[in-house]
């Protein structure tokens, strides 16, 4: 146990560099997946056949490809097509795209859960599609969407470790590097696990808060 704390003190600063990158990747891909997911969801419920079919097939394609393959594609294949991305850019883009499919389905479920009478009331005072979305549907859908959105945040935090496969030196990769040079596997990976857990707990509490609020009405 004493050894553990000793190692922990030694490795902590290096691992903190990894934590910084983990947070950057998570927040970056969270923002991207939210924007893309919203776009796919809006296309899906637009009532315009071409857009909704395009969105449905996009979502299926994205869902059908493992995140790790998506990352390899962006990082190793895109340069052959003349687009060179840094490892960090490829990681954020890949995770953002991969998760946009889940976000889109979540947002769509939230939008479709809104009572049809709400949309009719908005139409009956002359609101068009976009105004109805912005003023009536989305503000109400947010309450429904937030708890699963929180879960996505937790999953993204953990899945950001997949960026290690394309050389992003986030927490998991930093851990692996230290472990392979010191052979202190147990102490290093226990520390890495504890650090992920520490970052997850606030998010887990946030989800619980969202769920309580959504359940109120």
């Amino acid at each position, binding site marked *: 146990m004493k050894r553990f704390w000793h190692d922990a003190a030694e490795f902590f600063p290096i691992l903190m560099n990894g934590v910084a990158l983990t947070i950057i990747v998570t927040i970056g891909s969270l923002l991207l997946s939210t924007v893309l997911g919203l776009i796919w969801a809006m296309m899906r419920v637009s009532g315009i056949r071409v857009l909704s079919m395009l969105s449905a097939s996009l979502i299926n394609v994205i869902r059908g490809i493992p995140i790790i393959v998506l990352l390899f594609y962006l990082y190793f294949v895109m340069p052959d097509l003349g687009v060179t991305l840094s490892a960090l850019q490829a990681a954020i883009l890949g995770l953002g795209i991969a998760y946009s499919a889940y976000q889109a389905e979540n947002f769509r479920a939230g939008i479709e859960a809104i*009572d049809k*009478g*709400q949309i*009719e*009331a*908005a*139409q*009956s*005072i*002359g*609101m*068009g599609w976009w*105004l109805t979305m912005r*003023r*009536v549907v989305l*503000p*109400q859908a947010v309450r429904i969407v937030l708890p699963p959105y929180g879960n996505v945040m937790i999953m993204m935090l953990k899945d950001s470790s997949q960026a290690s496969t394309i050389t992003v030196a986030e927490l998991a990769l930093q851990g692996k590097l230290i472990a392979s040079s010191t052979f202190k596997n147990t102490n290093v990976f226990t520390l890495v696990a504890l650090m992920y857990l520490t970052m997850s707990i606030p998010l887990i509490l946030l989800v619980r808060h969202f769920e309580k609020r959504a359940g109120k*009405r």
Partner: protein
Amino acid sequence: MIELNGVHKSFGKVEVLKGITASVQKGEVVCIIGPSGSGKSTILRCINGLESYDRGEISVEGLKVDRDAASIVAIRTQVSMVFQRFNLFPHRTALENVIEGPLFVKREPRAQAYERGRALLARVGLAEKADVHPPQLSGGQQQRVAIARALAMQPKAILFDEPTSALDPELVGDVLGVMRKLADEGMTMVVVTHEMGFARDVADRVLFIDGGVIVEQGPAKALLNQPQHPRTQDFLRRVLHPL
């Protein structure tokens, strides 16, 4: 101001409107009565384009109602609607519900919209509920907010789709009272209702609809007191003397 000419409408294979021809004059109060599923509500929903129709023509002040045309917005701002289940926006206060249309559809100046909104709430007897959210209001209060929301668009006519059917019996009077006041002030109203007392006292004309056609129509008192058609007689007997 509202004209329906040979309007047909089907939901799948079921034809719910089989050639409705009717008109509503400015300042007139027309009640539509009839059994459930007869197509009463569908007529209202076609007039403001919430529902499309298959054949015939509906026009409002000479403008053809076509829910896919840009003109539908203009029609909807002129013909407001009050729903059976109120359909207030639960995430906004009573006052915000009322000023939503003026502020975001009509782009009225904020101060003016707020001032008019408060005046309208006062008019339906809910001045003190301006900052309350709909779920905290009774059904009758919610429906009166909905009427204020419809009035806020300064419409030329208001469509009421069974406005008291979802209310506790003791709250019906408040809503009907507000509607009677509107009628007295000369508002053009089309009301789908089961409140025969209201139809008799307030309506100028009554249409009796059954099976997607207008079976009988005429001045309210005459139609309700001396119905001519056997189906009208039968319906009124069942409604007025259920035992």
